[in-house]
């Protein structure tokens, strides 16, 4: 992977004119939103749009404006708690930057885009799709979708691509988020969902948090962890930074980025050596232990320490606590998963869970913490490149036949699996893909090696973006269609625990904007291929999704809007029918997976795991280092992540004034020892350079990070974007990009960057 640095100029444009016309500008509460004692027209119970926890909340609505939020104390997951994003999410609605019309690219217009009639924009879009597909084949038009959409919309997106466009190439931005966990879970358990409800954290004796900045990325989980600790739990945190959750943990393992598999192999080695193993469980419920045991023999504490950069005694302590625990919960997030070895990392963590036998019981749990609003539901129902609804496989003939039957089409007409999101960009670069529709995806900010992404998007014959704000990616579009905000539509979302919750509509779309699914159906109609895309409401889509998912692993057939409302959410799998003698899940669905004696459609009673023999798999996980390691030329590790006040590419949160004020701009975080060597003081401008690009930011000099690593949060665009530097190396199975490790060099900047005087912090 290591090669020469790029010589061409990789500096993104400042785009000042477009920013002037379309933002991001900051919204603050004013007028009706500041009036006190105002009586809202209604309180709408719904959930937050800004992370996979899906906090329950109530939106206060007056005259079609969301004027604020109110805690929803009864919702059991968060009981009224919210992070700053949830509290201020209402400021995204009735925002001055909101797109009220369709737009066409027009160099002569202010900001580069000219407002146009919605119908004409739909017509032009359909004509372009038709032209590209009839000239270059169906696969020459690709679709990128997102995991912050309701499950109903993700279902429609999959159906639109596979049935209407008949293109193989649809993928989604969960590719940057959840896929390593998904693939690892499928390989180990045969199912991809958090194994336990969060309640099980409360009773766990040892909590191991690996690569999850819980306090900033899943803030509500903090109270679960703290509460467990009040009751005596020991908390172990694995992270290259002392994040707020690590600050008071019982054991901190400062892993060198990219070395997680080595750590878990080393822990398993010690568990085996001390016989901290549940032999009966392994015997009865798993396969693969012998091979894994043999493979970790070489992972002595000494070797593990050398590779991971963690002290021997800390590794021993972790193994002892984990090995001898009565109850435990292991959770991980992108820190473990955003690697070219992401799936292996996940499987190595699962190995220590399975070896302990502590799963499928109260207070014994395992979960990945989802990131995006619908990180869970968004990856289940057919907008992944190889997937059909219900977690079914596009490559499986039986699955194709079942779904094609529900959709009323010939299974042979369904496309074969396509390629992942980044590969779609590569195919755009090579000219194989000529047209693109994106919804809920901001690739220019969120994909690695963004210089390459920008160059590729410029090559598209036709790019149509559906969005509520003109995202940085939409600036590359030929047509922009005004879509819907979370509060302008209804549906369901599946939150981090696997609980399906209801999103309720609070306000109507403004101007010519409309619900995303209507836009998609309008395009289908203009193409003359509206068959199967004539839904009149999200409820109707959900009813079809129930049928389409029935019998699959992600079975939603027993879930209804009413049942969700009645029970504060329903956990899938929730089949409507099971064979005689098998009990149906309780009113809340399947709350905990893998309980002894539980039935599932794959094992059919053979065991609790989702394989024909009902047994879980331990997978051999040989350690392989990151794709781009440090060397003399680029001697420092760059790792990236989030801050609590921003969400993903920031298209929404960089427009919300109070959130931007909290953390206006990204800083490059480094240890004082590294800073001293580089002659950089806190607050100085520092330039980080990788083989792919460079980025100048102010330095934040803190002892809470490994001295061999620098950290940059990734929510900002253009010249502030961490993804100018990151590498597009991907996991061979999950295709997740390696956001968490690449090699950089850092120096004190010669001068403040041009953007500092030209742009506001959020731009």
């Amino acid at each position, binding site marked *: 992977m290591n090669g020469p640095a790029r010589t061409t100029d990789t500096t993104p444009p400042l785009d000042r004119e477009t920013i002037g016309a379309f933002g991001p500008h900051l919204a603050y509460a004013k007028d009706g939103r500041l009036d006190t004692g105002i009586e809202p027209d209604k309180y709408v119970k719904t959930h937050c749009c800004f992370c996979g926890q899906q906090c329950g909340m109530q939106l206060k609505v007056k005259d079609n404006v969301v004027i604020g939020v109110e*805690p929803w104390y009864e919702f059991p997951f968060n009981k009224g*708690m919210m992070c700053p994003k949830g*509290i201020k999410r209402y400021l995204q609605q009735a925002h001055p930057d909101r797109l009220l019309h369709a737009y066409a690219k027009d160099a002569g217009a202010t900001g580069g885009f000219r407002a146009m009639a919605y119908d004409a924009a739909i017509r032009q879009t359909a004509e372009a799709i038709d032209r590209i597909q009839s000239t270059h084949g169906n696969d020459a038009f690709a679709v990128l979708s997102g995991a912050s959409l309701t499950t109903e919309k993700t279902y429609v997106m999959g159906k639109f691509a596979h049935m209407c466009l008949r293109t193989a190439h649809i993928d989604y931005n969960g590719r940057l988020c959840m896929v390593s966990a998904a693939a690892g879970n499928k390989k180990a358990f045969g199912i991809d969902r958090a194994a336990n409800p969060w309640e099980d954290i409360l009773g766990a004796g040892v909590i191991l948090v690996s690569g999850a900045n819980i306090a900033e990325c899943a803030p509500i989980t903090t109270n679960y962890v*703290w509460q467990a600790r009040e009751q005596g739990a020991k908390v172990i945190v694995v992270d290259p930074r002392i994040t*707020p959750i690590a600050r*008071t943990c019982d054991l*901190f393992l400062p892993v060198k980025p990219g070395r997680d598999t080595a750590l878990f192999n080393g822990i398993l080695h010690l568990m085996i050596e001390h016989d901290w193993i549940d032999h009966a469980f392994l015997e009865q419920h798993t396969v693969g232990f012998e091979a894994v045991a043999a493979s970790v023999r070489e992972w002595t504490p000494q070797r593990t*320490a050398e590779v991971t*950069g963690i002290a021997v005694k800390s590794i021993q302590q972790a193994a002892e606590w984990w090995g001898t625990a009565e109850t435990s919960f292991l959770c991980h997030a992108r820190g473990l998963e955003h690697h070219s070895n992401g799936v292996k990392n996940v499987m190595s963590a699962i190995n220590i869970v399975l070896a302990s036998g502590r799963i499928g019981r109260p207070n014994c749990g395992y979960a990945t913490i989802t990131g995006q609003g619908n990180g869970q539901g968004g990856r289940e129902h057919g907008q992944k490149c190889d997937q059909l609804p219900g977690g079914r496989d596009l490559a499986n003939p039986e699955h194709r036949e079942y779904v094609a039957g529900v959709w009323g089409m010939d299974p042979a007409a369904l496309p074969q699996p396509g390629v992942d999101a980044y590969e779609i960009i590569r195919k755009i670069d090579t000219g194989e893909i000529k047209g693109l529709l994106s919804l809920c995806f901001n690739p220019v900010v969120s994909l690695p090696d963004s210089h390459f992404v920008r160059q590729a998007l410029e090559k598209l014959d036709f790019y149509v973006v559906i969005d509520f704000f003109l995202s940085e990616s939409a600036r590359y579009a030929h047509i922009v269609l005004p879509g819907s905000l979370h509060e302008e539509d209804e549906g369901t979302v599946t939150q981090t625990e696997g609980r399906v919750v209801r999103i309720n509509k609070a306000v109507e779309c403004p101007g010519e904007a409309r619900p995303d699914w209507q836009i998609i159906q309008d395009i289908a109609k203009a193409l003359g291929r509206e068959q199967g895309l004539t839904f009149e409401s999200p409820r109707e889509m959900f009813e079809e999704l129930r049928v389409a998912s029935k019998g699959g692993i992600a079975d939603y057939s027993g879930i209804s809007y009413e049942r969700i409302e009645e029970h504060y959410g329903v956990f899938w799998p929730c089949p409507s029918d099971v064979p005689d003698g098998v009990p149906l899940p309780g009113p809340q669905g399947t709350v905990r997976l893998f309980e002894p004696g539980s039935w599932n459609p794959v094992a059919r009673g053979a065991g609790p795991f989702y394989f024909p023999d009902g047994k879980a798999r331990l997978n051999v996980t040989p350690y392989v280092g990151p794709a781009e390691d440090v060397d003399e030329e680029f001697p420092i590790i760059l790792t990236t992540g989030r801050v609590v006040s921003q969400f993903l590419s920031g298209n929404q949160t960089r427009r919300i004034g109070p959130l931007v004020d909290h953390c206006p701009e990204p800083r490059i975080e480094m240890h004082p020892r590294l800073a001293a060597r580089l002659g950089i003081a806190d607050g100085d401008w520092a330039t980080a350079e990788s083989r792919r690009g460079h980025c100048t930011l102010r330095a934040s000099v803190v002892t809470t990070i490994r001295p061999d690593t620098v950290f940059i949060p990734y929510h900002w665009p253009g010249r502030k974007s961490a993804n100018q530097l990151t590498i597009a190396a991907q996991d061979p199975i999950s295709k997740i990009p390696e956001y968490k490790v690449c090699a950089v060099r850092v120096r004190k900047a010669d001068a403040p960057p041009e953007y500092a005087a030209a742009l506001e912090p959020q731009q």
Partner: protein
Amino acid sequence: MPVPDALEFFIDPGRCIGCQACIQACTECDTHKGQSMIQLDYVDRAHSTQTVPVVCLHCDSPTCAEVCPADAIKRTEDGIVQTARKPRCIACNNCVLACPFGVPKMQTKMNLMMKCDMCYDRTSVGLKPWCASACPSQALAFGTREEMARLRPHAKPVNTFQFGRQTIRTKVNIMVPRDAPTDIVDVTASMHEPTIGREILDDVFMERPDGGDA
């Protein structure tokens, strides 16, 4: 309606994750919309992510009210020290300077002192204050003493503070380790768990993986 006696406010700085949900929530409070009355600071960001949230502690004999020449600050029967009354406040800043916890804020634009009134509009109807509703770590918590004792068995609430010769009793409690002495002068000293201090912290990263000395 008065704030129910059984419901009390507890601050547990050891739990705080610095997320600022409390600050954002405070600006949603109907009694001072748009303004946060909460003080949240890093203790020493160069060396730790520890932050300390401070709301008004609602002193039994509020110094802020005692030094007010215009008698603008009232303590209601239920022990809540209210924000300055607009017609009376002369914006003299005495309270701002006198409060030992640095709570009152002068709104220069409005010529009015504003302070935390424990979301009187909410607490007086039995709801939790906004900050304690939202706080994801429950470093700010609102409930009964019994509930707190059950949920946090290793901590105890303290509401008597010694500042030199001045003893201050407050309505709001600060959670301290159960075996800690009761004279707590400043909230950071009351942290339930010590922060990972500079030394230890440097150690964590500087330890040689093989266990030898760096």
